[in-house]
């Protein structure tokens, strides 16, 4: 048993694809369509064969309600690790990325939160280096 894929609900798959690739910097991994159905995933450019993130259309009421509630409570739909939160913030900010939390030091890590333009908050995280 392996963890190969995880999912984020989005309200617009085309817009999501642009944000997750152009702004966040992921690469498109799979993109299939059958009538109204579209299976769309992205992966990390640093780990193209790593875990995929499915950008699933929130076209059922439960998904839309869940997504909205998480957003309203400021809860991130996903968290991604980066080497340097401040550097990513400086890179994405001029691209128009809307940060709801600038780089912020918290216990054990530095985090920032941004709007993915498709109904979600995304958290980026840099873990503190532990000295042994």
């Amino acid at each position, binding site marked *: 048993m392996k963890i190969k894929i995880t999912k984020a609900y989005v309200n617009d798959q085309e817009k999501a694809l642009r944000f997750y690739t152009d702004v966040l910097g992921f690469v*498109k991994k*799979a*993109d*299939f*369509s*059958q*009538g*109204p*159905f579209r*299976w769309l995933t992205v992966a990390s450019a640093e780990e193209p064969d790593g875990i995929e993130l499915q950008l699933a259309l929130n*076209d059922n009421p439960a998904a839309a309600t869940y997504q909205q509630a998480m957003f309203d409570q400021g809860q991130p739909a996903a968290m991604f690790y980066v080497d340097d939160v401040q550097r990513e913030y400086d890179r994405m900010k001029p691209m128009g990325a809307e940060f709801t939390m600038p780089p912020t030091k918290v216990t054990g890590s530095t985090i920032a939160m941004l709007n993915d333009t498709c109904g979600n908050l995304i958290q980026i995280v840099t873990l503190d280096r532990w000295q042994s």
Partner: protein
Amino acid sequence: MSNREKYSPGAAAGAEARRDGDRWTLVLVRELRHPPEKVWQALTEPEQLREWAPFDADRNLDTAGTVKLSTVGTPIPQVSETNIKRAEAPRLLEYNWGGNDIRWELEPLANGTRLTLWHNIGRKFIAMGAAGWHICFDVLDRFLEGHPIGRIVAGDALKFGGWQRLHAEYARQFDIEAIDHTPQPE
């Protein structure tokens, strides 16, 4: 080996990608050795659609009005309520599927039917659509011949080697870049 296992699609042929501004339409033509009346039934009757089409219908498509079409082979069937705009047996059928218009035209030939499908699928998926419909038409042909092999759609089509080749061939014909859809090895 069953007829399904023996099946292998021929070369990409009979398809065209037409562009009108941002709107792309896939046009597929196939000649079938059966009269339009028989082909019409296969295009409209739910129990016949189940033999070859990428969707199920909750009623016969042979009259105008609303109908629910469900995708086959997706993790959860995606049901779209649609409208049969025109149903003129046995020559013209028009409806919408998942936001794309679909039009079927049946022309009688001396020994069968020339079936033309217009599908305004987006550019991104047009080669994929051509490969998918190509296989569906092969399966339809065998079904009409009285040797059904069972529909080959969605994941079944992707796993099937011929799909990858057809997809690449149609992408080349349409001069668009084919994305590698090779299923990941387990």
